[in-house]
Each structure stands twice: as structure tokens, then as C-alpha cells.
């Protein structure tokens, strides 16, 4: 096990934080190039493979998590309120917004083929989506996913969303023409 100074420093810092820490902050504090910090973090991730905890990057920052395998035992300690499950309609609407953001409600409705107003309100209410400005021509409100969305899905960034491509070749071009048909 090669646990050099930079590894130890990162471990020590991440042990005292209450929210994720970015690679940039770590690099600044440790006065090391960001590449070195990234390499050390990825070393640590593999060093912990066999442990009851993990180091994970979610929403752009790193912190310690309990290992998913130990959820049963950890849940005995965590008395958080059960998070309500999302309905199928909410999940599908969320999926469309995640991949088409920023996107207007009308657009989401057109893709889903049903009125999505109530579902989108629920998603806003649950902190999973938020307003993202106004569409130029139509004046329609646009929506995007929040950082809480990334947290809930355990994603580091939107780039980590599974690719839609295998299902939908050449979608961007199709969308525009589809819109012209549904107008």
C-alpha cells in the first residue's frame, strides 16, 4: 500500500467535512497540481475496495460514504424520514427533462404525449427540477434538473447520465422537425 503524504492529507480533510469537497479546493489547500490530487483520489478509491466505506464523487465533490452493501446495518442508525418513491410518470418526466434541459413544459408534454403540469410541479416541489430562464421566442419558462437531482441519482455531473444514443440515433435533428409537426 503506497499511502503517501498527499493521500493522508486528503483522508484527513475529508474526514471532517459536512459537504463534498471539490478537487480544486483540495489542490489549492495541498498546493499540488490538480492531476496529482485526482490520481491520489483514484488511488484511495481502489484502496477502499474491500472496506465498509467508500470515497465517491457526487455532484462535483468528494466525500466519504458508507458502502451500499452495509445499508441494512447502517439503516438501524439512520432515522431519516423515508423518502417517498417517485411514480412512473414522475420518473419518465424527470428523464425527459434530464436529457433535454433546459426544456419548456410544452416540449416535455409533447414528448411524453400527456399533460405534465401536475407531475412537473411535484418534481419542483421535491427539489429535483427548477426554473432555468425563459425561452427566447415563445416566452415559455424553461426547466432544468437541480444539484439535488445529481445527489439522488449519485451522479458526479450530467455527463454521467447513461447515454440515450443507443436508443435514439440522431435525436437532436429529429426533435426540431418533430416540433414543427406537433405545432
Amino acid at each position: 500500500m503506497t499511502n503517501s503524504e498527499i493521500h493522508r492529507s486528503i483522508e484527513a480533510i475529508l474526514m471532517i467535512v459536512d459537504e463534498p469537497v471539490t478537487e480544486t479546493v483540495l489542490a489549492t489547500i495541498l498546493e499540488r497540481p490538480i492531476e496529482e490530487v485526482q490520481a491520489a483520489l483514484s488511488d484511495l478509491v481502489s484502496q477502499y475496495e474491500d472496506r465498509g466505506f467508500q470515497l465517491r464523487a457526487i455532484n462535483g465533490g468528494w466525500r466519504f460514504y458508507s458502502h451500499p452493501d452495509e445499508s441494512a446495518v447502517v439503516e438501524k442508525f439512520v432515522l431519516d424520514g423515508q423518502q417517498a418513491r417517485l411514480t412512473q410518470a414522475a420518473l419518465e418526466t424527470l428523464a425527459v427533462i434530464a436529457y433535454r434541459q433546459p426544456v419548456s413544459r410544452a416540449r416535455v408534454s409533447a414528448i411524453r404525449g400527456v399533460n405534465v403540469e401536475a407531475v412537473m410541479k411535484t418534481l419542483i416541489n421535491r427539489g429535483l427540477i427548477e426554473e432555468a430562464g425563459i425561452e427566447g421566442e415563445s416566452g415559455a419558462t424553461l426547466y432544468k434538473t437541480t444539484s439535488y437531482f445529481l445527489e439522488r441519482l449519485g451522479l458526479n455531473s450530467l455527463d454521467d447520465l447513461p447515454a440515450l444514443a443507443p436508443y435514439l440515433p440522431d435525436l437532436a435533428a429529429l426533435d426540431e422537425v418533430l416540433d414543427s409537426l406537433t405545432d
Partner: protein
Amino acid sequence: MDLIEGNQIETEGDGHTGGFAVHLENFEGPFDLLLQLISKHKLEVTEVALSAVTDEFIAYIRQLEQSGEGWRLDQATEFLVVAATLLDLKAAKLLPSGEVEDEADLALLEARDLLFARLLQYRAFKEIAATFSERIAATEKSFPRVVALDPALAALLPEVLIGVGPERFAAIADRVMAPKTPPVVPVEHIHRPLINVADESRKVIEFLRSHKSMSFRALCADADEPMVVIARFLALLDLYRTGSLRFEQVIALGELQISWIGTESGEVAVSDEFDIAIAPLEDSDELNNEDPND
């Protein structure tokens, strides 16, 4: 029919819809398979009798109802979405190409292909939604380390920066303390009291006879729920059919003006075709199944 056999295994592998099967002249099999064939260009959508598919679906739902299984809401919803897509698809296929403004777009992609794509798009998001659900479940199995700032370290810190002013602070409180409404399927409409079109017809006749001419808005001013508005609209259509009134609408979506041209008094035959014998439930569903344009 050989096409269908070729795809049978795939559908069974999917195994999620299962229930509803269609029986058409040129196709017989699960609804899901019909979609697959169309999306794979193995069946021409214009050759599918959508009304027949719809009739079969309604029959299927009725059969479920009678068998005591009740409504399969998931299947009904999925059917509606897919049927709407198929209808769009078919419409675009049948309509003259003048409907699309940009000829270059059409040259690029046939309308048919576009709508296949739309169908695929819907299905793709549906599949992706399943992965979302899995990811959320997986994330919930890990818990983050969240520890308090050590008092010794806190003592080292300079003044706290709250970072927001009082107004913004209040807005945060507002947002955080707003009750989180869980996602629910509204069911209020299921228990809506029966609205009787025949009764509403009588009220409409009475109104119009005394006012001669009035706007639809005024006619529905006292309606305390949307079903009353719908019932009165149906009543108007029915009275129009009997030649008792005249519609006037100067601009599209503008005020709808209704003038009474029927008899001044006496009984006007009121249709009860929209109403059903009093049944405990599903009254509004029955009403929706009626086509007022018939």
C-alpha cells in the same frame, strides 16, 4: 403472419405488457408486438385500423372490469399514449405534405420516419426512467459522512458569513418549510357526483328562452364544477342538432354566442343519450367514452 412468429420470443422476453392482444385482418398478437413491428418498419401504419385496435382495447378493459380484476390503470395509460402516437403517425402519413412548412425537412426525413422516431423516443425515455429508478435505489443504500465542525476548529474561524440578507433568508425558510406534497394520482374525479346532461339541458333551455341570446361563458357562469360546463356543452350540441339554437363565433377561440331559435314555450325533447342509468361509479368515464359529434 410469419413476421409475428419471428418476433414472438423477443416480446415474451420483454414480458411487461402481456395482457392486451389485438386481432386485425393483417395482424394478430400482443399490442406491444404491433408497436415493435411498426417501429421496425415491418408493418405499414396506414394499414393498421386504429379504430379497430381502440374498440378491442375498450372491450378488453370492459372484460377486465367484469372479471373483477378492475381497471388496469397502467395498461390503459400506456395504451392511450401509444395510441395517440400511432394516430399522429397515421395522420402525418395521410395528410398532404403542405402541413409541414419546411420542404427541406421533409426531404431530409419522411414524416413517417419522424413519427417512428417519436415512438422510439417515448420508449427510450421510458426505459431510461427505469434506470433512474434503479440509480436512486442504489444511491439510497449509501449514507454520506456528515460531521459537525469540531469546536476547536470552529474557534479558529473568523466571523460566520451567513451569506444572504434577511429577505433571502426568509425566502429560504419559506421554501424549506413548505410541506412536501407526495406525488399522488388525483382520484377526486372518480367520486364526482353524477351530473345529468338531460337536467342541464332543461336549465340551458330555460336560460336561452329568457335571454334569447347569450355567450357560453354567461351560460356557464353559475357552473360550480367543470363537469357542469361539459354537460351544458353537450346539451348545446344536442339542441343544435334539433335546430333549436344557432352558434356564432366571430374569431377562432373567441366568445361563443348562442341564440335561441326554437319554440318559445312547451316541452323540448331532451336527449338522454349522454346519461346512463344511475351506477355507483365510473360515471364520468362513461361520459367520456361517448362521442358528442356522432
